[in-house]
């Protein structure tokens, strides 16, 4: 109970918000808009899982938005050339993993701070894409949107895929030795090295995983619309970092659970539709999301202070 307190309090807050919506804005629960919301957030959830793992390993990757954009455009171009989706998907994942490997190589290999490395790659990748594409949209051929299924079926596939991925990673973090290594390295890299673990290998691996998930998420996003616009993914890094922090992942590493991240993401995602249904000005959205993040950070600070005093 005590170990999950942070996650439970996020879940409780989310439950309160959902109850309030049920009482004051039952329209929120109409199936079609709700499914659309879930579908929009599905790729974000996939990236948030990767980001949570990166942060647990005491790193950060702020270039995910740029990676996501590049993978989106590249996947779109491949699809436009007639590649089938089963070939586009692994290509996009591989491209993301490659970009992750660049980040991981610089951070783990040269021991550079990840915030600086990924800031540099974020800007470089984004500007590189702008230079090459000049902001051009990619029109997708028929049969790509919703995998060629009906919209409802396509949406269901995406949401279920994201949830399955979340469950798989949550399980792996808890029951696979590699998951333990991520926590150990995030808590104390030098102690991990003394114990025979390979902190640099773990660091490299989490960045590669992050990139691969960005590539996967790009395709999950791509199939939702008839065209790819190159600005897609801008600001994604802030969204997923916020979800991780609100969900109880310690920014100092070593602590966090994916189901907390899931709750954190849902909480932040509910703000916008809740405002619409409660007929509050949409300008409040960012302010309220910011307040939620601030509250989570303050809660962590208070908890750490009380732990130190005790």
């Amino acid at each position, binding site marked *: 109970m005590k170990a999950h307190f942070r996650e439970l309090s996020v879940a409780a807050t989310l439950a309160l918000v959902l109850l309030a919506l049920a009482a004051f804005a039952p329209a929120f629960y109409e199936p079609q808009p709700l499914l659309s919301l879930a579908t929009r957030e599905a790729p974000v959830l996939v990236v948030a899982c990767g980001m949570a793992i990166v942060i647990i390993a005491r790193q950060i990757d702020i270039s995910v938005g740029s990676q996501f954009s590049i993978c989106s455009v590249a996947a779109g171009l491949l699809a436009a050339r007639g590649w089938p989706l089963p070939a586009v998907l692994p290509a996009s994942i591989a491209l993301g993993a490659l970009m992750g490997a660049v980040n991981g190589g610089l951070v783990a290999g040269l021991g550079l701070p990840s915030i600086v490395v990924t800031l540099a790659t974020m800007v470089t990748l984004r500007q590189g894409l702008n230079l090459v594409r000049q902001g051009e949209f990619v029109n997708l051929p028929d049969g790509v949107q919703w995998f060629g299924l009906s919209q409802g079926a396509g949406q269901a596939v995406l949401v279920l895929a994201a949830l399955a991925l979340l469950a798989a990673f949550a399980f792996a973090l808890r*029951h696979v*030795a590699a998951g333990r290594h991520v926590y*150990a390295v995030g808590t*104390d890299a030098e*102690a991990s090295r003394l114990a025979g673990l390979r902190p640099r290998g773990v660091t490299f691996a989490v960045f590669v995983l992050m990139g691969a998930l960005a590539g996967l998420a790009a395709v999950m996003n791509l199939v939702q619309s008839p065209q790819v616009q190159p600005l897609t993914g801008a600001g994604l890094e802030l969204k997923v970092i916020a979800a991780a922090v609100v969900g109880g992942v310690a920014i100092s590493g070593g*602590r966090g659970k994916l189901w907390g991240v899931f709750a954190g993401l849902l909480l932040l995602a509910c703000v916008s539709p809740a405002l619409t249904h409660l007929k509050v000005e949409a300008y409040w959205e960012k302010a309220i999301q910011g307040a939620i993040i601030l509250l989570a950070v303050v809660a962590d600070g208070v908890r750490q202070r009380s732990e130190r005093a005790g």
Partner: protein
Amino acid sequence: MAADTPLLQLTRITKSFAGVRALRGVDFELRAGEVHALLGENGAGKSTLIKVVTGAHRPDGGEIAVAGRAVGPLTPKSARRLGIGCIYQQPALFPDLTVAENIDLRQFASAAAWRRVDWTDRRRRAIAALEFVGARIDPAAEVRSLSMPEQQLVEIACTLGGARIVIMDEPTASLTHREQAQLFRIVRALRESGVGVVYISHRLEEIFALADRVTVLRDGASVGTHAVADIDEAGLIKLMVGREVQQLYPPAEGSPGKPVLEVDRLACPRAGVRPVSFTVRAGEVFGLAGLVGAGRTELARVLFGLTPAEAGTVRLDGLEVRIGSPAEAIARGIAYVPEDRRRHGVVLEMPVEENVTMAVHRRLFAGGWLRRTAERALAEGFIRELGVKTAGPAAPAGTLSGGNQQKVSLARWLATKPRVLILDEPTQGVDVGAKSEIHRIIRRLAREGVAVILISSDLPEVLAMSDRIGVMRGGELTAVLPGGSSAPAVMAAALGQEGRG
């Protein structure tokens, strides 16, 4: 102030943390011009009591009087104003600032932030403070560039300015013999000038050499104050642990077997290790003595693959091996219990059980799946076997006392079933009870055929525990002495011909 008014008088001090009573009504009295030793096992309440005096903790009850005048609960600021200074085990200095800046900051921390910095005056005061502690250190040197013992002297210089009551918490933990002698001179000079010194140390011989009176704490209560002249070592130990400790050092049994570790001209100039050759046999305890900075830890790090060797060979059970990383060392059966357990020996935030299994993932979690039941069983086995006092295997290691943390660190390495076990200062900062338990564990491992390398700056420990004693100086193994050698013989080898001690 009358001559017989105590400088510091603590009466019935109580303090609880989350319902656990750390201090249950402690009385303590410090007179001007005395060195008063404070003794007790880890967890007996020494640190808490010190923190009450320095204002870091607010007591729940009791009275504090300084020079006969009752003062309320102290704060760090009011304690400093009353002339209470504390020298901690680990120097609390700013590594990127110069010595003079550090001294200035600590002595004038509460001065106005906007006062003009008088560089000449600052330098003069720094020189005076350093002179008082007899340190020949350039006040303009960056603290980062100083050796650990030099930093300790700077720490002392920072604290002494204007202090009437000086608390020293294990000040010799990182000092060599020469600096230790210097520290003793400082303490005696303080006593002459009428300062009261509270001296905390686990090394009983220091207490007999230095202190006038000694107060023993046990389980958060004082179990008596004695004049040092009226009590002996056995009596003190009995007071501390509440029972007779039979023998401080268990005797060696059996004779060493075949060579397990053969080191031939192993060198790593990058890490300051010059060609070193020695052999450790199965069941042998090979002590490594030397001054701080003689290269003992560096040698251990080379053997463990943390800084891979650049030349020379290592044979394990007759086979030549290359060790390029800790993972390879562990796979070959070499284990290294590092020096600073609080930093890297145990991970304080992680549960005891995860700490225990940290070095055996490959074996315990073969195939990559975590086997939590197996993990818990392994941890529980070691908790029983080593007598680790913990709320349970799932308790964070940080909740354990220092001695028990050290046992967890040991358990992690015993779990690897090592052929060669390198122990780096295994009993530093550990209380007497846990210390003798660790000694018994070392003996038992030797009996089971493990080749043990024991690095220790505690000379009596190295002398009593080792079958042979290697002495290092300047990154070289300068002598290998038989077990039972005398302390002067080891010290002479450690200092060498040009020794200045």
